[in-house]
């Protein structure tokens, strides 16, 4: 009871827990759009930022009301298991291959990500992987597969599996002068770049789609159905989509709304 006395819960405080990804949070998007939502509805959004895999697991345990991640295959699986109500496209951004100025794999300026990855492996250039079942990690693995490599079997000491979020992984890559696949949003707001810069971008296969789902109240009766639904509705509404598009860093738009 000491716990409740020290931190009184205000009954009229409306809030939801949204499980999202570290890259989305670290891009600063939430700081920008959540106050708009709060002003309109009075609902506070509490974002717990984890990797995509962990965020979905959190929701599977019923500890979140809404999930907002970017790994289509994992999201579909989540839906199929009955944990979500329905999936909506929200926005997309893209991934970029970041690399050191010295460019040992000679990929800089390229527009073909698969070719870029092949060259990195051929040169045994240091490469940092998220390794944390995040959307970015899943995308990275799928790209290796598309490029014709079974990275789990064929990797060498040049491939560093760190198990970290996007920010820490970029820190690691900057310290090691390594290549790394990053979402553009985190990269743009990342300040500790060292000698890294964008090596490969613009490939269609680097397209990164974000989706939102309401946690299924039938499976998780404690999930806040109405408040959560309000957030989902707002995010795919013209107003929410406009707020997403308005978020820029250094004049550059990070996320491109594409709800249907």
């Amino acid at each position, binding site marked *: 009871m*000491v*716990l*409740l006395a*020290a*931190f009184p*819960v205000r009954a009229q405080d409306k809030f939801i*827990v949204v499980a999202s990804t570290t890259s989305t949070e*670290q891009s600063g998007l*939430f*700081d920008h759009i959540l106050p708009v939502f709060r002003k309109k509805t009075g609902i506070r959004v*509490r*974002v*717990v*930022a984890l990797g995509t895999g962990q965020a979905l697991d959190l929701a599977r*345990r*019923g*500890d979140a009301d809404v999930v907002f991640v970017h790994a289509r295959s994992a999201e579909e699986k989540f839906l199929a298991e009955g944990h979500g109500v329905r999936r909506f496209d929200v926005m997309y951004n893209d991934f970029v291959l970041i690399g050191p100025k010295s460019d040992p794999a000679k990929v800089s300026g390229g527009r073909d990500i698969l070719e870029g990855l092949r060259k990195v492996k051929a040169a045994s250039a240091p490469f940092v992987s998220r390794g944390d079942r995040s959307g970015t990690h899943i995308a990275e693995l799928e790209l290796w597969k598309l490029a014709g490599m079974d990275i789990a079997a064929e990797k060498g000491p040049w491939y560093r599996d760190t198990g*970290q*979020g996007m*920010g*820490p992984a*970029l*820190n690691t890559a900057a310290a090691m002068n390594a290549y790394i696949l990053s979402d553009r949003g985190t990269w743009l*707001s*990342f*300040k*500790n*770049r060292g000698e890294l810069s964008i090596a490969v971008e613009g490939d269609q296969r680097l397209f990164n789609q974000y989706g939102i789902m309401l946690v299924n109240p039938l499976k*998780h009766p*404690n999930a806040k159905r109405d408040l959560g639904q309000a957030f989902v509705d707002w995010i795919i509404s013209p107003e929410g989509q406009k707020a997403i598009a308005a978020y820029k860093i250094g004049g550059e738009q990070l996320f491109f709304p594409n709800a249907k």
Partner: protein
Amino acid sequence: MSEALSTALALLIGLDSKLVEIVLLSLRVSLSAVVIAALLGLPLGAAIAVGRFRGRQAVIVVLNALMGLPPVVVGLLVYLLLSRAGPLGALGILFTPSAMVFAQSILILPIVAALSRQAIEDAWREYEEQLRSLGAGRLSAALTLLWDTRFSLLTTILAGFGRAAAEVGAVMIVGGNIDGVTRVMTTAIALETSKGDLPLALGLGMILIAIVIAVNAAAHLTRELAQRRYG
């Protein structure tokens, strides 16, 4: 780096509101945890120190070992308890400061209990004959010793507070590092550092170090004062 440092100092001096919010929350969480740990741990330590029961040595060994509980492990266990899917899920305190207090209380309870047990047992060794001669029973003796060792116990409590204020593993997992709700000094430093955004992290780091130093100074002064005044 020096640019980050000067920005950090500016935040500190200007009492940046975000910074203040984070520091106050950290203090509230860790102080609450230490109060709970003291209320439970001091009597527990006294009872073990003065008591005679089978398995007493084993209890002492386990209690001492629990002082080294890794905070992340405590965080994981408390998360499993408080998760909606877990036994205490109905409390609904996951991802709130209450969960953080809960986890930190568990973390520092062994420290308070084990260290107070040691202090009181040392005192018991000195006082036992005299107290028994006066006719004091075990319960009365335990209470007397709790008061008599009050300065050592205060040092123990300060040690517990220092441990709580400095840990990041437990509060990260059960708090979720939610902006404006469960973001404390340590989790904020972790986040800002991972974003490569150093000024806020540095500012918080300096405050955290200052707090740790202050706590240790307080403990030292307490010992000195007590020795001089009470012997």
